[in-house]
């Protein structure tokens, strides 16, 4: 009986260890992926297609441009070649980007065909509630105005019956703008020319609160970009943690980055001293 028991145990233990684990290493690839950044502005030439290589973790080198690639753009019926301009930039100034058309850029990298396609939206005209804003100069050591003396809001609006994404950039275009509040002027150029940008939103207006958001006198340019969803998607990545990191948004096949069509309208307003 004892012998039987012993053999049973040995057999049993052997069975147990049959199921032991094996470790396999998972190889990781070094990053050498092509990154395409291309904005196709309606009504402009194809002049700023940028192709570089992604930067590997721990890589001391800076950006690796991918020059001398054979890059083409197709508008659905014709294919045009883009010429290399150095530092990864490509262009074809003869090609005028048309609203309502689709364009595909493609090139070969690391034996793979990298391509991306986008659609060019139509421009929408925007209106502005005021083109001249009067604001009080705030001398150093004084307080900003309150109550009756504050400036009214500027409202920029456009038709968005299609429910598309819009994106607003406000920029002071003076060469040496004067600060409304001297406090900011003394910040050693930290604020420089005022620039304010929104995020792409499905919206038909954009409000600017001069008292909070405008810091300088002078002419401001407002560009209202109508953008595609693939551009808006760039703004919806916020996690940079190993718990939740995911592939970044990209419409480039076999590569990274973005090719997107945009249309824009430009308005101006001036901030004057009261």
């Amino acid at each position: 009986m004892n012998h039987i028991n012993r053999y049973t145990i040995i057999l049993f233990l052997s069975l147990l260890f049959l199921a032991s684990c094996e470790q396999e290493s998972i190889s990781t690839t070094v990053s050498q992926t092509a990154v395409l950044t291309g904005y196709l502005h309606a009504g402009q030439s194809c002049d700023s297609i940028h192709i570089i290589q992604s930067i590997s973790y721990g890589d001391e080198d800076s950006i690796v441009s991918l020059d001398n690639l054979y890059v083409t753009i197709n508008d659905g019926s014709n294919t045009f070649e883009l010429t290399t301009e150095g530092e990864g930039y490509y262009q074809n100034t003869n090609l005028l980007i048309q609203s309502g058309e689709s364009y595909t850029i493609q090139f070969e990298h690391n034996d793979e065909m990298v391509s991306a396609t986008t659609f060019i939206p139509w421009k929408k005209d925007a209106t502005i509630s005021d083109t001249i804003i009067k604001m009080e100069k705030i001398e150093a050591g004084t307080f900003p105005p309150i109550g009756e003396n504050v400036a009214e809001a500027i409202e920029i609006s456009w038709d968005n019956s299609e429910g598309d994404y819009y994106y607003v950039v406000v920029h002071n275009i003076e060469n040496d703008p004067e600060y409304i509040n001297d406090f900011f002027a003394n910040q050693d150029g930290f604020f420089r020319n005022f620039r304010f940008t929104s995020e792409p939103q499905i919206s038909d207006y954009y409000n600017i609160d001069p008292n909070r958001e405008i810091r300088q006198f002078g002419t401001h340019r407002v560009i209202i970009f109508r953008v595609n969803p693939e551009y808006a998607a760039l703004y919806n990545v916020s996690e940079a943690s190993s718990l939740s990191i995911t592939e970044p948004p990209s419409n480039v096949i076999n590569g990274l980055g973005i090719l997107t069509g945009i249309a824009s309208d430009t308005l101006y307003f001036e901030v004057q001293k009261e």
Partner: protein
Amino acid sequence: MSYQHTTSCTVMMLLLLCYSIGLYGQNLADKKVKFSYTDRALDLVLFDLEINEQLKFEYNKEDIDDIRITKSIPRLPLQEALITLLQETDLSFEIKPPKTIVLYKNPDKGKATIASSQYVPQNYNITVSGVLKDKASGETLPYASVLVKDTGNGVNTNGDGYFTIPNVPSDTSLLEIHYLGYHTLLFRLTPDNVRQDLIIQMAVIGQQLQEVVIVAEKEEQLLKASTGVSKVGMTPAAIATLPSFGEKDIFRSLQLLPGISGSNESSSGLYVRGGTPDQNLILFDEFTVYHVDHLFGFFSAFNSNAIKDVQLYKGGFGAKYGGRLSSVVELTGKDGNSQKFNMGGGLSLLSINGFIESPFDDGKGSFLIAGRRSFQSQFYSNIFDDFTNIGSRNASGSDDGATPPGGRRFGQQQVEPSSYFYDLNAKATYRLNQKDILSFSFYNGQDKLDNSRNTDNSAFGNRNIAFGFDRKNTDLTKWGNWGSALKWSRRWNNQFYSNVNLSYSNYYSERDRSDETAITREDTTFTINNGSFEYNDLKDISLKMDNEWQLSSNNLLEFGLQSSYNDIAYQYQQNDTIEVLNRLDQGFTNSIYLQDRHTFSQKLILTGGIRSTHYSVNNQLYNEPRASLTYLLTNKIKLKGAWGKYYQFATRIVREDIQQGSRDFWLLADDESVPISSATHYITGVSYETPIYLFDLEVYLKELDGLSEYTTRFTPSGFGPNSTLNYEEFFYTGSGVAKGIELLLQKKTGRFTGWIGYTLGEVKYDFEAFGDKPFYANQDQTHELKVIGNYKLGKWTFGGSFIYASGRPYTAPIGYYEVDLLDGNTATFFEVSDKNAFRLPDYHRLDLSCTYDFRLGSSKANLGLSIYNLYGRNNVWYKEYEVVEGELLETDVSLLGFTPSLFFNWSLH
């Protein structure tokens, strides 16, 4: 002293000796001693024997006061010598290896004649039934093992503490009863006491022993791992002395077992054998609990003051349980003291808790109410900040927060958050008669974190009254459970037991992170909401009926039916009216099960069963066959194995969010986008058990199918003028295999108890969406070693636990790239590695605790110190990445370092 009396005493002592020596005393039985004393105090005699004969005596000082000895013997075997020594006293003894002799008062002194007649058997091969209770509180003790001594015959008490043992050799047999945290009991049957149901009372270790029973050994072990296949029992009474994080925590204690990951500081959920927490069925008084975390998972939602028993099935569980792939944790709430009023409370650096319990209607009924609430101490804030203050980490590169695209940063709000958690348990039990018990159990717990603030209004001043706005910032996170169960148990007779349970469980989770802007324009006001609002509400209404039918002495049939209705709502809104996700899942799962447990020649126990579930969502029937066996090769060696098929219909989706704690929500599988997941368990093992040690080895293999990984992202869809950016949910589906070996070496008794547990494991998933190669699952952990020790020294108890675990896999950037945005800013994006291609550094930590038990008048109290992470190891929780000046930097984010905490507990009895 009459001759008869002396004889009966001797008979009793011999009886005692027979079993003591037969079981444990083989070595000491051979030892011979001699002595000669004249009118010497017994304590001095014992002292002399300890010195000269290298023996050790344990006794209560009061028991031996005033006893003087005049005896002289030549060198005799120890037992004979002790009989002679104690012949004219009322003391009995028990020999415990290796050299300890326990002395205690003989209960039957003066009743010798009656006692001797009671030990003459009158009936043979009888069935004995009864109920097991705590001596002090009258609480019934569930899942205790009741064995007929010196036979292989034994049963476990059921959930209400009842047991029935058939085939007991005679009405004078000895029952041996084990329950964790209680003195093991040897209960002598007599022709008188077996005529009715036995009421057997057990004493908690630390209480004064009484004489109704003969004490064999102390069941001082912290866990009971030898009762079945992959089954472990624990009681709050037993885990009280383990190092804890300020609070005695049952789930944290379970994490110290082999096969359950102990390195998840951010979750009190259980990762059992490569499973995930949502694959565990958590039953509290029979209602399902869907969320077990307090304070971002640092504590479990269960107040151990309200719990009397925990049973954990790590796999291969029987047909009674279903709906989950990985494990079952069955928690039984305390019924309340059925003998006298009791109250108590405790204070730690984190929370305050209290309970009251009392009998009513002359002890027919009892109730217990227990509650706990956190308070905002420095200690609480430390934990809270660790989970929420992402921007102030110790960084290997930079201490800045991560930089998402567009130059935005994770902003920490400069407001003092208001945050708390609480839970409340109440249970009332009423014994209608000898056969029927009615009980009602209630639970409510909630976590709330409010980080909201209101921004000053009148943004455009008063001049332009036609246009202005108010901004209200809300940042509210709230989650909690409601649960209640009404249970009716009936013992129809000794062979048949039923209970019916109607339960309701609700889990809700809400997060509102939004800015509400009210804009006034020309006498009209409209509001715009920016941000996100997330809401999950799960309701579970279940009716269960479970029956146990002892068909014959070797055959126990269990059968029942369970019907659950789930109603799960989930909403995720962004920016005002964009309803990103809106799910409403409803469905019935109706199950019946049948399980038969057959014992062959008291050596082989075979259990086979089947569970059939109809799932209304897809109108399909799912059959789950299950089988297990244990075979007693010798008295000490047991072989075991189990196999079973398991299906899961409700799935918890986790969306990792490091800023406010991970968000999770439940949904029902639809068999289309979310598949019904399934698992097949294969388990085999062997255990070797002596009265002092247990060595247990189990090997498991789990084949998993229908697994889902969830992710959401904004995805452009369509093309051209009609294209949109949709917030879409993706359920990546795949299969997986988890396998591993678990080893447990446990020292069960003595001053020093504890265990060493080791797990070698692997979990690999195979998802098409993540490539054609299998990848290690997030919870994969190759090695895990746990060393747990507990040392009692008088009123002091010292505890220690050490955990070593190899690092878990994670996904990381392998590179980055930049995209120039339209406004001239640059956004940085990461190029991401293969799924889980990297490993975090190894995890290890040492915790220590020290508890001092004392009395305040007639009440009990203890005071303790617990030290978490003694040597301040920075165990990496996750990594954050950012690009600073062209360099990709990573930041290790760790949870708590060295953290001492104090606790104090008091109770009237």
